[in-house]
């Protein structure tokens, strides 16, 4: 009674998963580049303090405002601190802020969105209004307001960034769950004895995740920009902490006098990091979607 002439394929295992990742990465060279850069920045964030050639906080006014040279690849700032070291160490802070904010936002937002999309009715209305309220504000202004009200600290930057990113996750997960809510496999899951919570968590959410991966990745880039922006205007990370936004702010005043390197290098790093995250999103989604596995 068995189906005849079945192709003898081995069951997919870890080797196939790795092959799949390699395929996705190499299929599109841009994705490969993005993965590479991301890996690089990740290493920087993890091991920054040990890699940095100089102490980022140590000031030495004798070498202040020196242009890029063999001793200081990215030059020094007004207090004689090595810019390269400060950039490397700032990676940890900025990444930390971005990851915390985005994941807080992601978990809360997608939980709310899933509930709204699954149950509809009042929960949908209330959650929708919460999202709308947040979106009614120019987001950066809202972040400024939150930090200004609660005080300058890294924790508050994370909180503000998380809040302003909530609506995206709420909306994306709500729509994705709504579309899949009546799918055959959801009904089949009910017949198999799943409760609503199990259906949401085990059946719907894993299928909703791939479309959200792009969102998460883009968000990481924005979160870093947001943190840098807040610090740039003085709300957020305080000197002498090394943070890309603060460094750009510090360097801005020196551009006119010709010390271009103080703002340029942190700015270029910011740009590269955001770029990497944007490209990463597509690649991540391809990896997670079992349908691109063949």
């Amino acid at each position: 009674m068995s189906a005849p002439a079945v192709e003898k394929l081995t069951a997919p295992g870890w080797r196939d998963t790795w092959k799949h990742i390699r395929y996705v990465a190499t299929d599109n060279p841009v994705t490969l580049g993005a993965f590479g850069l991301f890996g690089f920045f990740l290493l920087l964030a993890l091991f920054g303090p040990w890699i940095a050639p100089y102490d980022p906080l140590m000031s030495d006014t004798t070498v202040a405002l020196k242009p890029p040279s063999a001793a200081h690849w990215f030059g020094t700032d007004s207090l004689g601190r090595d810019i390269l070291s400060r950039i490397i160490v700032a990676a940890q802070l900025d990444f930390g802020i971005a990851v915390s904010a985005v994941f807080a936002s992601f978990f809360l937002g997608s939980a709310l969105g899933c509930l709204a999309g699954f149950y509809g009715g009042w929960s949908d209305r209330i959650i929708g209004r919460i999202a709308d309220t947040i979106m009614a504000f120019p987001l950066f202004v809202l972040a400024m307001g939150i930090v200004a009200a609660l005080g300058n600290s890294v924790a508050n930057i994370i909180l503000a960034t998380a809040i302003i990113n909530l609506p995206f996750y709420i909306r994306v997960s709500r729509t994705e769950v709504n579309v899949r809510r009546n799918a055959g496999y959801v009904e089949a899951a009910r017949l198999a004895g799943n409760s609503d919570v199990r259906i949401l968590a085990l059946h719907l959410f894993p299928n909703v995740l791939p479309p959200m991966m792009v969102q998460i990745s883009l968000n990481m880039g924005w979160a870093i920009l947001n943190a840098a922006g807040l610090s740039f205007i003085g709300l957020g990370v305080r000197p002498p902490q090394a943070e890309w936004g603060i460094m750009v702010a510090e360097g801005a005043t020196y551009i006119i006098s010709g010390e271009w390197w103080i703002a340029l290098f942190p700015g270029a790093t910011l740009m590269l990091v955001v770029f990497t995250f944007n490209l990463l999103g597509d690649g991540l989604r391809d990896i997670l979607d079992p349908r691109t596995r063949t």
Partner: protein
Amino acid sequence: MSGEAPLLSVKDYSLEFRTRSGTVHALEDVCIEVAKGETVGIVGESGSGKSVLSFGILRILDAAAEVKSGSISFAGMDMLGAKESALQQVRGREIAMIFQNPRTALNPIRKIGKQIEDVLRTHTSTLQSDLKRKAIECLAQVRIADPERRYSAYPFELSGGQCQRVMIALSLACNPSLLIADEPTTGLDVTTQAAIMELVSELARARNMATILITHDLALASEYCDRIVVMHAGHVVESASTATLFAQPRHPYTARLIASTPSPEVDIDSLSSIPGNLPDLRRNDLPKCRFHARCDRAVAQCAVQALPEVTFESGHRVRCFNPL
């Protein structure tokens, strides 16, 4: 058939698709002929290439499609060599097409009356002032009840059957000489199907319009087509007049297909099935006969030698080394 040249002639048409996972050999050496006013059924299962063929005839294939060989001639015009501007004169005006899912084939945010007017405006010389009247006339011809009111309806207000009638109205607005109907009744209720098929065949008869009916439903094809072409995995395996095909199918696939179709006389134990699956069309080592692996009459040549074309009486053609 009279000695007249056929209206549509597809000869040795081969088509490939370049995809991320390889080249799909979608069609190979397909030959089809449709005479003026004739109804030809193209029957096959999913993956047989029947829809791809119809898109190929109209040259509306995906950019990844590559014609490897063959020719398509319609009313004397070389379809494969023609320029896009010439093809646009043909599509919708000389050759019309109706699709499987009528609701999605219509523009959901445009009233159906306006959609019919679009076709009339593009392809005919109807005066602006006359458009609405003609559109309502088209609706009446496809037997939509209350056409004046339905003129202002949106597709979502209509049932599946009514949407299909609107599609038929759209395609017949310019009196084409060939109508390609790609699974026009799949997804419709059986009573609606009967009404739609009756409508199409009556209109085709009245206008002496040739029709290509693409379907997976053998019984449907048997009732409405003069001739039937059976396709499998991108090949035309058999073509014959309807009566001859069912009286004596010559290709093993055709015979098995007929035996797998439930009908009132057949009981479950005598219902046949076809073992195996379609071959992966991305392979470069496909056997010459793509039914080879699933065929119980396969002989040694089937996999390796180019398929012959065997002709039986009255134009009954089979591509097989061991026909029934």
